[in-house]
């Protein structure tokens, strides 16, 4: 404070005087120093130099002016200046009074701002020195620029302090009278900290914006009173891409999926009642293009009324579609895997269909898997699927509806809008995609019937499902192929075992034939012994025939003689036989349904089946007795019956079940149940083939055998035989004795490609009195008949021969000579190569290998010589 009183001391005069004197001398053109001249000793003539005079006048005038100036200041200083200066001095902002670029006064706060040392003089200091501008480019010191308006933001001035630090300040410069003369007053407010904070805030905001932008979050602000929404650009892009960003809450919420909207409202309500600190909801949003996206909405109440009612909600939205899709895909993948692992065949297709309907929100589905033969195993959920019938079907490639064929052919999902082939099928859109692994097409999956149709995103989803499903289906198909191979190799092994048994039996047969025929040669002279030897030989050949029969029965491809019969009497007969022979502690219960129909199996094989099954059941109860139940009843295969292949659905079967209350089948034995010679010790006993015979007989006629060991104990053997009736063949009766001249006068053409058979026929038929001519193939026979249509009374032909078959020959015979009887000789289970009606071509059928009498009898009947 003491310094303040000295501020306006006379030193201001001296320079002014010097200046004025200098100016006067300059104007007068005077050389040399003024004052020294003026102070020179009296008497010097230069004293009255005109310049000096002017100078003195000027000096005096200046002095007078100064005195006047001082006298004008004085009242200020005395009246309020001290207080005024005190006020300025202690102002909480910097004040610099300056004139002409030089400092007149700096207040205390200003000194601090400029970093001046205590007591450092400031008066007369150039502004550039007091407060050097950091903005070098500025043409004038900023303090010199008088503020013209205070309406706007006051300019920010940047000053580099002596210590190098930066002062950022808001300044206001005005012109004002100061100690009686105009001066400029610059008020300075330090903004350094505030600006730094502002800058930091700004940077933070920018950083946040960048972060939000990176996270693709949209920010929204909802005024609950007006329903007005303000959102960032990202908000608009997320909830309404390609469309106008909603500005009111109703439009916004209208974009949200109906089901999700309720969920959202509940979450917001909970939050508004302060039950949660914020709410978060994953929502499906319908977009302008019809596609839907998943949006994660997060929000909280930003302002409440005094009464606690929410006024404003703020929050974010984030597009989580990709994550949701990935999650759904993962979820779907695990469900698909579980389904493929846990189910198979029709059940698998059903389960997949249900998954598809759920996932794609479609009312109908169809799932098809191609089998090895290129047939499509198809399961449709409803009739309304275009071109489909409901349920499970097996379709040959050409029977696959056109729409599905297109799906199978296309590498990408197809959306079909046209109806199917059926006229009553509604125009339901169908979305389908094929299942393919690499280039192999495995099947297809389709959904259909969704009212609003299918979109690109549905197609994408189905494609994703198909992509995940295909490898699973492929693995399943490969597993099944391996299973089939395994089953085949087991079959091969069983056949090997069978072959071993056959070799054993066959060598014994050969042994007998060889040995007894050798003895016969020795016994040629002894008719009694010879007959015995030959009887043995014949017996051995019959055994050989039986053996071949057994082999054929085992094999699937060659079956026993198939004829249709009523099974009921045979079942009852078996039960009666059994009842007569079982011990008293075994009771027999036979239940035969009245409507068993007919089964396509021979009487002998059926007896054999019953005998083997009842034998096993009986043996199971050898100790302790029990109940043996025989059931015969019709059955129609249901679509979901897992015991049968799906294509058996609707097939009529006869179930023959033999149940016992015995010990059941040990687990270890189950796999080998059907092995021929499972008990090798019984080889040669004739019963060694056991259940393998049952299996062979049943499968030969297209049936199935199952063994079950129910929890209640015992074993149930179930045989299922097809009930499809087939044309019956005349049963061969035991041959009655034939008159040696039965065929006398009748002419027979015998056609067979095997010479031995032809020779045999000539002998057999010749002995019966027939006149026999032979031909080695169908062509030769046909030509022979054309050459002389009236030459024969009967034609006997083999079925399978090189060139013409027996049937083809019969057709030619019928053309050449209508009414000429034809007798067909055919192997077991070989049917004439045509339909049932073709049997009309043949008067008689003789099954190979035939006995002499059966051939002769057939020819006699055909020739009309016996009836």
């Amino acid at each position, binding site marked *: 404070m003491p310094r303040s009183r000295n501020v306006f001391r006379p030193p201001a005069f001296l320079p002014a005087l010097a200046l004025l004197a200098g100016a006067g001398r300059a104007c007068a053109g005077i050389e040399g120093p003024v004052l020294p001249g003026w102070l020179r000793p009296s008497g010097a003539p230069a004293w009255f130099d005109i310049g000096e005079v002017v100078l003195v006048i000027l000096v005096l005038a200046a002095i007078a002016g100064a005195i006047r100036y001082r006298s004008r200041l004085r009242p200020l200083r005395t009246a309020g200046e001290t207080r005024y200066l005190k006020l300025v001095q202690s102002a909480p902002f910097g004040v610099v009074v300056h004139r002409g670029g030089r400092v007149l006064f700096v207040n205390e706060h200003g000194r601090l701002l400029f970093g001046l040392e205590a007591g450092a003089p400031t008066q007369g200091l150039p502004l550039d020195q007091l407060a050097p501008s950091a903005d070098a480019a500025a043409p004038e010191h900023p303090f010199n620029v008088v503020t013209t308006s205070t309406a706007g933001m006051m300019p920010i001035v940047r000053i580099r302090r002596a210590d190098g630090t930066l002062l950022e300040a808001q300044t206001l410069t005005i012109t004002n009278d100061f100690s009686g003369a105009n001066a400029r007053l610059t008020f300075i407010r330090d903004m350094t900290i505030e600006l730094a904070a502002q800058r930091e805030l700004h940077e933070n905001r920018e950083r946040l914006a960048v972060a939000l932008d990176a996270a693709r979050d949209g920010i929204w602000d909802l005024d609950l009173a007006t329903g007005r929404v303000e959102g960032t650009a990202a908000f608009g892009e997320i909830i309404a891409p390609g469309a106008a960003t909603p500005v009111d809450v109703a439009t916004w919420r209208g974009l949200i999926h109906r089901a999700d909207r309720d969920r959202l409202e509940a979450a917001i309500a909970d939050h508004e009642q302060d039950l949660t600190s914020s709410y978060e909801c994953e929502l499906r949003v319908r977009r302008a293009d019809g596609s839907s996206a998943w949006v994660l909405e997060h929000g909280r109440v930003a302002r409440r009324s005094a009464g606690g009612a929410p006024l404003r909600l703020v929050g974010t939205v984030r597009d989580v579609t990709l994550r949701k899709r990935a999650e759904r895909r993962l979820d779907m993948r695990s469900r698909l895997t579980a389904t493929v692992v846990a189910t198979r065949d029709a059940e698998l297709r059903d389960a997949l269909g249900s998954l598809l309907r759920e996932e794609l929100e479609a009312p109908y589905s169809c799932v098809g898997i191609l089998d090895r033969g290129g047939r499509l195993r198809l399961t449709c959920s409803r009739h309304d699927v275009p071109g489909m019938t409901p349920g499970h079907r097996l379709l040959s490639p050409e029977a696959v509806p056109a729409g599905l064929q297109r799906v199978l052919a296309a590498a990408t999902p197809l959306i079909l809008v046209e109806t199917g082939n059926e006229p009553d099928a509604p125009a339901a859109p169908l979305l389908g995609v094929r299942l393919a692994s690499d280039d192999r097409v495995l099947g297809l999956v389709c959904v259909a019937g969704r009212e609003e149709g299918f979109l690109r995103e549905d197609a994408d989803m189905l494609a994703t499902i198909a992509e995940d499903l295909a490898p699973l289906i492929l693995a399943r198909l490969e597993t099944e192929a391996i299973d089939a191979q395994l089953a085949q190799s087991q079959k091969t092994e069983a056949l090997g075992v069978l072959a071993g048994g056959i070799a054993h039996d066959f*060598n014994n*047969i050969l*042994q007998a034939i060889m*040995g*007894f025929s050798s003895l016969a040669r020795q016994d040629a002279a002894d008719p009694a012994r010879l007959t015995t030897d030959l009887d043995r030989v014949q*017996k051995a050949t019959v055994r050989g025939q039986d053996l071949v029969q057994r082999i054929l029965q085992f094999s699937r491809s060659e079956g026993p003689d198939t004829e249709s019969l009523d099974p009921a009497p045979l079942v009852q007969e078996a039960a009666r036989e059994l009842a007569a022979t079982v011990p008293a502690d075994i009771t027999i219960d036979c239940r035969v349904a009245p409507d068993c129909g007919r089964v396509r199996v021979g009487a002998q094989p059926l007896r054999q089946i019953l005998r083997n099954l009842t034998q096993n059941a009986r043996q199971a109860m050898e100790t302790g007795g029990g109940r043996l139940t025989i059931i015969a009843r019709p059955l129609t295969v249901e679509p979901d019956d897992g015991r049968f292949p799906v294509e058996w659905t609707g097939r009529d079967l006869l179930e023959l079940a033999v149940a016992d209350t015995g010990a059941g089948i040990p687990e270890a034995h189950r796999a080998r149940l059907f092995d021929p010679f499972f008990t090798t010790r019984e080889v040669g*006993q004739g019963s060694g083939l056991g259940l393998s015979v049952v299996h062979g007989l049943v499968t030969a006629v297209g049936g199935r055998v199952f063994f079950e060991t129910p929890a209640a104990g015992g074993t149930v053997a179930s045989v299922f035989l097809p009930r499809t009736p087939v044309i019956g063949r005349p049963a061969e009766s035991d041959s009655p004795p034939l008159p040696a001249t039965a065929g006398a006068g009748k002419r027979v053409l015998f056609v067979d490609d095997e010479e031995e058979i032809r020779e045999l026929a000539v002998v057999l038929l010749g002995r019966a009195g027939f006149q026999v001519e032979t031909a080695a193939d169908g062509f030769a026979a046909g030509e022979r008949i054309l050459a002389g249509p009236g030459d024969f009374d009967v034609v006997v032909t083999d079925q399978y021969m090189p060139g013409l078959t027996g049937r083809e020959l019969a057709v030619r015979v019928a053309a050449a000579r209508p009414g000429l009887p034809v007798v067909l000789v055919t192997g077991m289970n070989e049917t004439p190569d045509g339909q049932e009606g073709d049997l009309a071509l043949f008067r008689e059928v003789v099954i190979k290998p035939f006995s002499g009498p059966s051939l002769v009898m057939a020819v006699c009947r055909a020739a009309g010589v016996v009836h």
Partner: protein
Amino acid sequence: MPRILVIEDDDEVRELLESLLTREGHVVATAANGKQGVAAFLAEPFDLVITDIIMPEKDGIEAIMDLRRGRPDLKLIAISGGGRAEPENYLHSAQLLGANRTLRKPFSNEAIVAAVRDLLA
């Protein structure tokens, strides 16, 4: 007169051997499996046994082992038509266990007659 036991489960082959060897002047007894055969052998002595290999109850291999145990000097002929394996496999085992001769079915009458004659000479 040499006594021969034929152990064979196949009726025809058993009857053939019985008939053939009886004509050759041997005393022939028969059995339908190894168990019966060993029992018959223990009941009365035989000079030679002809046995099949694969039979129910007790097979030829077991029978040979039983028979050989009591009578090291017994003459044994094993015959087989095979089964799960080739006849040679069974016959080789029989030979290792002490069969003097082995014949693979079907064999000729002369072959078996010659074998019997050789062994009983």
